[in-house]
């Protein structure tokens, strides 16, 4: 053993954000959700947000469990309804930074209607969509993001539906910030999250993540490490790409980057502007009570 003095023991940068009394978490070995949580923690530090004013809302699913593990005001809501809950929360207290952290099935299948409307209205929410192309928690059913040909328990002979192209869906619905990264791109994810936190409006970050136990195993795609290597090799960074062209095929190229970063009034701003214009001095802004 060294005779040199010890370094002051530091703390894992993610630790202050975890409900350590609930560790270890339930995610499988090699699941990418934990990796995204690391990025989230570091992004919260970097963006210098007041953590008492950050609220995290999740739906149901493996990614939906993130809210329960974060030491923030957190809400584990019903399947698909994280976004409207978050909308109520944000409208009621605009001081809050509201993050919706959920999976592809929760946000886009059952939650699809709420997703497009919140994007249309530009509700000031930060959507972290962890996309593992499957319904993990319930055992590996097909999702609206599952590529054609992939096997899932409810498409045992291969998925035959064209999947959603999430960045395209987000952009065309009106999101003001749209980015996609894979679990490999940890520094980019962190930076994207910081940008989203500082952005006013509906910000959408899709993170392609491995689900080793179900999606990868059933489709004989190797283990999580193989998939991370695949992300590294087959991803192409194209900032500003046309979101129409970023569809993902099974085993195909993954186009990553920041695709959309525009400005337009948020729902809260538009509401205030319109009501002030119509009512003039009679308008009582909702803040007070």
């Amino acid at each position, binding site marked *: 053993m060294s005779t040199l003095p010890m370094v002051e023991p530091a703390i894992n940068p993610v630790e202050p954000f975890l409900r350590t009394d609930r560790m270890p978490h339930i995610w499988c070995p090699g699941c990418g959700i934990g990796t995204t949580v690391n990025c989230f923690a570091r992004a919260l530090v970097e963006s210098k947000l007041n953590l008492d004013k950050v609220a995290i809302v999740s739906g149901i699913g493996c990614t939906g469990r993130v809210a*329960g593990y974060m030491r923030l005001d957190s809400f584990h809501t019903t399947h698909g309804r994280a976004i409207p809950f978050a909308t109520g929360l944000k409208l009621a207290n605009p001081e809050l930074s509201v993050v919706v952290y959920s999976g592809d099935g929760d946000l886009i299948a059952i939650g699809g209607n709420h997703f497009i409307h919140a994007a249309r209205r530009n509700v000031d929410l930060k959507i972290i969509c962890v996309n593992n192309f499957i319904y993990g928690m319930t055992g590996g059913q097909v999702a609206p993001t599952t590529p054609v040909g992939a096997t899932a328990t409810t498409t045992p002979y291969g998925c035959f539906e064209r999947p959603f192209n999430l960045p395209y869906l987000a952009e065309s619905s009106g999101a003001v910030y749209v980015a996609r990264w894979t679990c490999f791109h940890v520094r980019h994810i962190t930076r994207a999250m910081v940008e989203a936190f500082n952005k006013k409006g509906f910000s959408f970050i899709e993170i392609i993540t491995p689900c080793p136990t179900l999606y990868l195993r059933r489709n004989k795609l190797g283990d999580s490490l193989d998939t991370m290597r695949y992300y590294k090799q087959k991803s192409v960074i194209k900032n500003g790409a046309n979101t129409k062209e970023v569809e993902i095929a099974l085993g195909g190229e993954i186009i990553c980057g920041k695709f959309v970063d525009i400005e337009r009034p948020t729902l809260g701003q538009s509401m205030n502007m319109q009501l002030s214009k119509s009512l003039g001095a009679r308008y009582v802004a909702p803040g007070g009570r």
Partner: protein
Amino acid sequence: MKANPAGVLTGAHFLDGDQACCEGALAAGANFAAGYPITPSTEVVERFAARIPTVGGLFIQMEDELASSIAILGAAWAGKKVFTVTSGPGFSLMMEHIGLAAMTETPCVFVDVQRGGPSTGLPTLPGQADMMQARWGSHGDYETIALCPNSPQECFDLMIDAFNLAEQYRLPVLFMMDECVGHMTEKVVIPPADGIEIFPRRFTSLPPSEYKPFKPGADGVPEMVKAGDGYRFHITGLTHDEQGYPAMNWREQEKLVRRLVEKVRKNTDKIVRYEERDIEDAEVVVVAYGITSRVALRAIQMAREEGIRVGLLRPIVVWPFPEKHIRELSEKVKAFVVVEMNYGQMVYEVERCAAGKARTELVDHGGGTVHEPEDVLKAIREVAR
């Protein structure tokens, strides 16, 4: 505490039930509503949308009832006093979030202006066929409180009570109107703000290190908190412990869900409310609620003129059901005549509580219009024989 004058439209007005319901919410201090248009309830939120920007608060029309029913829960956890409004088909859609509100003990009010059903049914015509759904509609075990107004005045008065009960017991309260009461126009007197008693939200004064969102007080109800105050709390629909953390085992289920149902069951005596007319010497008791109670009154008048000793029992709080009182009455009276605008819902409760000691007759009606007093009179005559 007294009502905030900003929302109180003091004075004598000519309003329909929907409008009065909105004014009741405003007087109670509601400052956030989300809704989706559905006949015959839409006027409630239309009026709220027009009134709230000058009172202080907001309304948002969401993309469907699923979104409306959970947006209000989000707003409640940010500290707002919230409600939503719907009718039958929307009520069915909202069931999941009534359950979430019950499980997370979120104070809120759900208004159901009942119409003919099932399914799309009779959108513009009355019904009273959601009564059992109000009690059992969401999956799992839970208790809610449901009130049933029978006039626009009651739509105002009882809405304030609904919000007060929601805050007192930290749960969703259901406001079961019907299309008739909702669309009839009558005099509604709104008192000055200092004449309206409001039960304030029981925010905790404990520091974050000690506060537990689901640790009950002596009355079985935990204290509330809101996002943004540094409490770093967790709310989940999963079975949870006092900390709010998921705890999915039978012990925590027993501890939590039993407390949720007992919150209402153990306080039933304090919550139950009913109106009685001509009960003292009655041999026959007509049980009716909502608009049907007014038709029943006419039938009772006609029966009294024939010499039949009949009275009215009108549950105002329908859930929890006035079980104790029905049991007491069943010892004294010959029969109950249950008049409702459905094919039999609350009659089962009456029959259960009467336990065979008094006969129970149903005068049913599928909705679309109210009963004819003659039909009620026939039943009264039949059981009085």
